[in-house]
């Protein structure tokens, strides 16, 4: 029941914004109210979830089920395991911050914030559905329904090439979804052969999975895999992400890259491995190859990007490669690492995306070359960008280090070659993050966007008179720079922006130093997945 409310609350919020659409201020507050309520609810769910029960072998908790379409053997069944729980928590944690970030964002002409916020809440609702569904049919319904609000978010509120990006996103995803539908129908038919009556219950299908012949499993696996690989995205299926990520407005972009894409990796973990154990093992080399290519290729392309949002998208492709390596090397450590990585990637890439968004708001350009020396005039912004970048490259002490380390340690015993190749990706990560930081933040003030913003502000500053707060003799600061900093053509972080970033920074640091509580929640579910795959752990012991 708790989960049903969790699912319906953001949906109710999205609907509630419709009658309020002409009163934008009230609509924004209502949306924020619903998003915060959802977060509180997730906290309640977190405490209602029992780790000992999961360790004792309960696969799903807080279950809720009613009959839906008996003719198709499908039920409206919700339930969560540890992995789903942490992803739910991450989603609900990110959304209020994104609403706050977008509070005064410039939208394309004729669009209002009420529509924007309603679509964000609708996306959140479908994500809740995807993570909580324990019926494969229901999962598919949410998986496809998720496309629609995101399509409108990109297409209505995005950048100059938003139409192209939105359609590309939709068609890629829909194509994957339809391939998956073929497998879904196949699964239904197979389940009828195996169990007597067709069913979509995840638990029943999992129990029957071991008896399905390997060749059948491979076909069904491929259907699901293609859909998830497009969503995640793994390398040959990735080309929609840079476009969609670049054109999406920042709030939607964070949801897209940070959460929506996790549905793909979550799908690998929840559906591909347990439902098709034999096929997963047989095809693991293929997936690992794609994943490692993704790590290296994504990192290389990230180095070469001139568009900052595309840069973030390509770093994500590299990270998804790591997650996939962890999932398909079949050890509980690596699985736990991958699960944690999904959360961490949401936080660190989310923050990186937000930082890029802050730069774009100020400079009006997405190009790296239009920025330079920003640290001189906006030091707080530069510091936060550095932190986000370091978290993205998995510096020890930040959250991503724990998960990346677990993935690599866990993968090595079974897949040494792929692991070593993946490690090279870490070096690239340092390259792309630090070089990006150097180009945009350090050195003398330069770049069309920065200088342009400063020029525009000069008359205003002159009218207001020279500020006496900083600079001048006796100060460490160059008077010229101090003047420019105060003239607010390229302001440092505002209080609202700091309020957006603080939770993210806290999250990144806390998960970097004490990942234990989260890993405790994840571990029992990961062990259960290992049992479902039917492989023994290569080293023994779970991640802690």
């Amino acid at each position, binding site marked *: 029941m708790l989960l049903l409310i969790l699912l319906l609350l953001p949906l109710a919020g999205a609907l509630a914004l419709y009658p309020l659409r002409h009163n934008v201020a009230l609509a924004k507050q209502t949306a924020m109210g619903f998003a915060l309520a959802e977060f509180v609810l997730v906290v309640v769910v977190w405490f209602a979830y029992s780790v000992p029960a999961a360790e004792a072998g309960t696969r799903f908790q807080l279950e809720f089920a009613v009959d839906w379409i008996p003719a198709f053997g499908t039920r409206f069944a919700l339930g969560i395991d540890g992995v789903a729980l942490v992803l739910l928590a991450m989603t609900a944690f990110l959304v209020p911050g994104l609403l706050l970030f977008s509070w005064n964002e410039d939208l394309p002409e004729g669009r209002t914030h009420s529509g924007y916020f309603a679509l964000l809440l609708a996306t959140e609702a479908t994500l809740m559905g995807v993570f909580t569904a324990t019926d494969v049919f229901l999962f598919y319904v949410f998986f496809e329904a998720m496309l629609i609000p995101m399509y409108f978010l990109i297409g209505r509120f995005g950048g100059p090439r938003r139409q192209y990006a939105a359609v590309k996103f939709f068609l890629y995803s*829909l194509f994957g979804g339809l391939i998956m539908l073929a497998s879904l*129908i196949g699964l239904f038919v197979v389940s009828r052969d195996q169990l007597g009556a067709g069913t979509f219950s995840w638990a029943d299908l999992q129990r029957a999975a071991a008896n399905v012949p390997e060749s059948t499993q491979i076909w069904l696996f491929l259907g699901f895999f293609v859909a998830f690989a497009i969503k995640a995205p793994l390398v040959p299926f990735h080309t929609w992400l840079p476009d969609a990520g670049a054109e999406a407005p920042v709030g939607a972009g964070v949801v897209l890259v940070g959460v929506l894409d996790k549905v793909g990796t979550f799908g690998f973990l929840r559906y591909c491995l347990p439902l098709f154990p034999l096929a997963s093992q047989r095809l693991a080399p293929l997936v690992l190859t794609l994943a490692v290519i993704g790590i290296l290729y994504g990192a290389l392309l990230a180095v070469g990007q001139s568009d900052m949002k595309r840069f973030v998208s390509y770093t994500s492709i590299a990270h998804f490669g790591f997650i996939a390596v962890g999932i398909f090397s079949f050890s509980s450590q690596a699985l736990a690492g991958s699960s944690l990585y999904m959360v961490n990637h949401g936080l660190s890439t989310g923050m990186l995306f937000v930082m890029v968004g802050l730069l774009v708001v100020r400079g009006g350009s997405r190009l790296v070359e239009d920025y330079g020396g920003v640290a001189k005039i906006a030091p707080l912004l530069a510091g936060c960008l550095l932190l986000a970048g370091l978290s993205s490259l998995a510096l020890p002490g930040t959250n991503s280090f724990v998960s990346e380390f677990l993935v690599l340690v866990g993968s090595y015993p079974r897949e040494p070659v792929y692991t070593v190749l993946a490690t090279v990706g870490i070096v690239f990560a340092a390259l792309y993050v630090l070089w990006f930081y150097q180009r945009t933040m350090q050195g003398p003030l330069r770049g069309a966007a920065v200088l342009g913003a400063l020029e525009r502000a000069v008359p205003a500053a002159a009218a207001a008179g020279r500020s006496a707060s900083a600079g001048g003799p006796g100060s460490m600061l160059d008077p010229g720079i101090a003047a420019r900093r105060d003239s607010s053509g390229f302001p440092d972080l505002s209080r609202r922006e700091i309020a957006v970033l603080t939770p993210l920074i806290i999250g990144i640091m806390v998960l970097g130093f004490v990942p234990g509580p989260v890993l405790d929640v994840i571990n029992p579910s990961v062990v259960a997945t290992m049992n479902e795959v039917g492989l023994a752990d290569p080293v023994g012991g779970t991640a802690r």
Partner: protein
Amino acid sequence: MRLLAQTAPTQPIDVPAIDYGAIAPLLIVLGAACAAVLVEAFLPRHQRWPVQVGLSVAALGLAGLSLGLYAGSAGAAGITTLADAIAVDRPTLFLWGTLIALTLGSVLLIADRSVEPGGAFVAALPARAMIGGRPVELPPERGYGSPEQAPTMQTEVFPFTLFALGGMMTFCAANDLLTMFVALEVLSLPLYLMCGLARRRRLLSQEAAVKYFLLGAFASAFFLYGLALLYGYAGSVKLADIATAAAGSTRTDALLLGGLALLVVGLMFKASVGPFHTWTPDVYQGAPTPVTAFMAACTKVAAFGGILRVLYVAFGDSRWEWRGVLWAIAIVSMVIGSVVGLTQTDVKRMVAYSSVAHAGFLLLGAMSITEAGTSGTLFYLLAYGFTTIAVFGVISLVRDAGGDATHLSQWAGLAKRSPVVAGVMTFLLLALAGIPLTSGFTAKFAVFAAALDDGMAPLVIVALVTSAIAAFFYLRVIVLMYFSEPAEDGPTVVVPGAFTTAAITLGVLITLLLGIAPSLALGWAAGGGFVS
């Protein structure tokens, strides 16, 4: 007289037993159609419209009521009546219910006089005729109303609709091929006429009517040839006898297969399955939009009802001999519908090609001679019919000075002018594309699951790939409506009157309902099999 009767040879003629309860809906509809003709003949012009609308709606309501009463009392087995000419079984009842409900929606669209002032139908050219390149003064048109009233529309369209509905209902209940042929003609002739009645773009409308008539006549001829061959093979036109003959015969199969092939051509034409679809885009485009709605939804239901029964009852046991051909037809239909649909620039033509693709999907279900196949196809027809009616209802609202603004470029930025209409259209297009939580998805799932279960995995893959292709052109309309800027001299969106609003609302609600809670309708569709 009495003497004469006594001296005549006393060969007893068996009066076939008639189950009036079972065929009451059919009798009501055909009776109302005859009454509507009388109304047309005897009432003064300005009284016809309200009487015709009232009569049609009342007849449909009564027919629906008697159908509901009979369905509630009848067993799942089904009966045949009128000397086995008509089979009233669960699929028949489901199809009748679907047809009556869809016709009700269409009649609401047809009756509307607010969207196109005075209604969408006229019989004669307006007073703008040209002779020798010069405009000629014609005597003022006799308005369809009393002198002080605004002109009303041509009302023959109501009896046409009822006759066509009667033909459709007979067509999908017909248990022998001869009844089926008569029903085919009864449903087709009014439709040919209805296509030519458009008030705007007369030439296009009349061209559509002629094209539909000529090609339809060919298709009827094919059907009749097929019937003759099958009679030669089985010695009977009854579906059950053909099945028996096919099962236990040592004769050559040439007559059987030849007859079936010709029969199928006739049926596929009516159902606008590719490659027999060539009339569809022109007729959909040219016919008045409310008539297009009726034709697109109801003809498809009736035609596939007939196809299901013929394939299941008469040719179910010989399916391994013809299925290969139907595989090819289904693939051709799906590919033509979705690929050629991509290149269309007219909304009505686009929906026409979409209907060709949908016909291919439906054929998947009709080909799998299983209970799941039958019930899936029936459900698909219900879902598709309502979505289609609502789609054409919305299309009729977007207008400019020349009538319906159907060119795609005219739909640009529609969401800005009329967010509700754009939202409704988006929902309906997503349903046609088969996105979950709409009836389109449930229906596709039901049909594809049945097909996969019956060993047609490659066809299901093709169907899914073509679905993805078709999604592109639905998406294009959504992109145009939402993401493009409206043109300065773009079309206006008419605020619909009560009738059109009711029809669109009905279609949208059922599309949503069948997507979220389809159990009831699925249960009805799976209520029982064909009787023979």
